[in-house]
């Protein structure tokens, strides 16, 4: 039972991580953080919206 709980938690975390990676890939954003390039990347769209 304990193993099942942990496996479920790990699977959820892994799923969230994969989802985040795929979302970044789709956006084509800057994975390394914005270094102020002046908006030549799609990251700025999201940041400016916020």
């Amino acid at each position, binding site marked *: 039972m304990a193993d099942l709980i*942990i496996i479920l938690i*790990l699977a959820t975390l892994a799923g969230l991580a*994969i989802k985040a990676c795929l979302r970044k890939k789709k956006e084509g954003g800057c*994975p*390394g*953080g914005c270094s102020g390039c002046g908006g030549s990347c799609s990251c700025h769209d999201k940041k*400016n919206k*916020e």
Partner: protein
Amino acid sequence: MKKHIALAGNPNSGKTTLFNELTGANQYVGNWPGVTVDRKGGQLTEHEEIELQDLPGIYSLSPYSPEEMVSRRYLLEEKPDLVVNVVDATNLERNLYLSSQLMETGLPMVVALNMCDLLEQQGIKIDTLALSRQLGCPVVAVSALKQTGIAELIKLMLAPAPAAPKTLSYPAPVEKSVQQVMEGYGASRFEAIKMLEGEELLQKGVDKVKAHALEDIRMELEAAMDDDVSSIIAGSRYDAICSFIPQVLVQRGTKEKISRRLDAVLTHRVAGPIIFVAVMYAIYYLSINTVGDWGTGWANDVLFGPVVGGWLAGFIGSEAAGVEALTMFSAVLAMILIFPTMLRRLHDLNMNGAWLYIMVAPFVLEYVCPHLPGVLHSILMWALLAANAALLLMGLFKPGTHGANAYGSRTHRFSARPMKLTGRAGRCEFSTWFVVMSLVAFGAAMLGRCTLECSPQLQAIIADGIVAGVGAVLGFLPQMAVLFFLMSFLEDCGYMARVAFMLDRLFRAIGLSGKSVIPLMVSMGCGVPGVMATRTIENEKDRRMTIMLTTFVPCGAKLPILALIGAMIGQTATVATIAYFVGFGSVILGGMMLRKMHMFAGGYNPFVMEMPEYHMPQGANINLRAMERCKAFVQKAGTVIFLASALIWTLSNYNWKFDYLNTAENEAAVEQSMLAETGNLFAPLFTPLGWGDWKPAVATVTGLIAKENVVGTFGVLYAAAEESPAEAEAAAEDAPAEDELPRSCDLNKANTLSALTMALWQADSDTRAAKPAETAEEAGEATAEETPAAESEKTLLDHINYAVAVLFPEVEEDDETTGVAGNVKAAGAFTTLSALSFMLFNILCAPCFAACGAIRREMNSSRWTWFAIGYMCLWAYVVAFITYQAGLYFTTGTMGSAQLVAALLAAGIVIQALRPNPHKAKH
């Protein structure tokens, strides 16, 4: 009915800051059709009928760059109701050049004279009324940064649009030619001047006869003014502007500009580069050797050691975590969850730098206080405590300066996304999140008492795989945070623009485009926007060459590799600086070599760049930039590194038959794992570089996913070596007994967390004291411990000191390298030379997949993409090979075939770089 207002101005005139101030959160971002230029629009705060359009920063309305075309098309075709021309008051003459063209469009205009605060500092005053008379339109002095003059500007925006401004008067021959074109072609004044300048866009559709007539008018003007038309027009504009500047500038600063004085030194031909090297060394020294190292040491020794390890053992293992570990876990987790809201709260209180104090104070208590004499010790300690308490109380109860949770006057009780870094948080929001997140953290910490007793394999994948890998990377976060903070400071203060200027001088000398400087500077943060920034280079050959070279500069993701290798060698700041300049050296050498090749021959782009005045950066801006980078670092650790660590652990603990190898108990079994057997297939390729073992080879390959993965992989593969029985006995003798104070510290080391620790420890001690011994062994231990009565006699001081001793273990003067660097060093995986070779290879070889994807998009050709990646890998291999083999020669005197090949390669590189360019004569 909606009113459309456009914001137009030079780059760096403060247009976007003003736009943010006017629109707050009511913004949207899209793309202008047909070009890769952002389109930013928004509604004026509390006046949704006013639609604001932030046009790209431009120097003129000539249609040469995408930004200029976009702005011009919007102004001439969509004809906004009002143009707000944002002018940098500290560069009036240059900014008014665009203003003169905007005036000729005939659109109603208001001039927002921005950066007036900087003007005051320079001792200069502008007579806005006089300027308004000269331009024929309203002029308002504003400071978008200090938020002054905004209300007056908004009034002008809400008022009925003023009449179109008057146009500047040019010399008689010019005015005559303009009139001729206006009458002959039915053009407006703006169009007539542009047609005279030879703009092809406006001449489309003009028949041959009229085109000849236009040419005649141009030739007549050139003959009259003895110059070409473009120069005549530009000169006329500047002459007209300069004619009224003396009437407008009523007071000039008498003191020499500090910026010019500094530039004389900082951009000097000889001193400038030396100062740059010194500055970069100082930054790396501060971030990786000293300040950041304290945090990394604490993270490796405490956080990912007894705290997270203890919690994990209590959660999934069989031994409940101790109160000290749980208290610390709870405190750290609460701090992480509250941190973004705390930053926004500090921004609301106009105390943006205070977060630095909050993070540094515990380390000052630990590392500085003990060295101070008694009275100073007490004073500093109590001052820090009082400041902590005051900050907390202010955060909870003091009204903010603006009382807003976002830019603008609209208030929100709670932000939609508490983890975001921008905006402000009110006291209601902060106090709620403080309480809620503290409870969440406490609840999460209590999970450390669950003792689920999972299977050993599951415990191993979590502890030795995920936590080891992610912890190895996150352990470098303190160093990265300090580095990002210092780099943001450098960028914001204006110094990096001077660096770009110095590099441009060097790049032109070696045949690189001056515009290549910007992508390289951007790549220091991340290679993805660096590659994308090459879009500004018009020449295709230059652009391709820059794309191939730009990722040689160490990006943020490569910094943990530098820190790891530096820690192993023991010269972190020196290693980091060397790696940095090897990267730049690779760019220069690569440029010199590639320019000689036919596929990159020719092409030269002039480079125009604005050098902003030096100024003290805004705390909020530095915070935001540094924290965004830290957030991205942590996000990557929680996603890519998390997945990769789990995968690497699995592959290194199972063989091809999926039998569990249990490498924790049998280290040698790892050689039978899937990962080892696969790694051994290609590891021999790296033997000439000095690191032919499968572990570093695998780490290099995983670095293609994300460069931080190299460190994460090391964290998994080089787990802490098991102690021998003798070592364990010696460690047990040295370890303080639980009831003994680890060192002679006293109340001076207390902090707010320790009080909570004391309370929980006391409660736990009482519980343990009341619980009867279940076994004889436990009964024996109980008699050896102090009796419950003695336990309860412990003073507050004792409790606090023990907790602090757990939180901040004493660092021995001859302390060994800790964390993943210590594990790799202990495993004897590298010598100094092979470690350097490994570092250079990983820094120079193909970038991460995200950057490769960016290269593919920008190259728009698979062939060129593979060529670029192949070039980078080959260059990395050659540099690492030369470094290792040359190092072997100089350190051991070895002179074999490998050293000869290295010498030949080095000679070949020098020859190719220094030989005359065979294609130069053709251009």
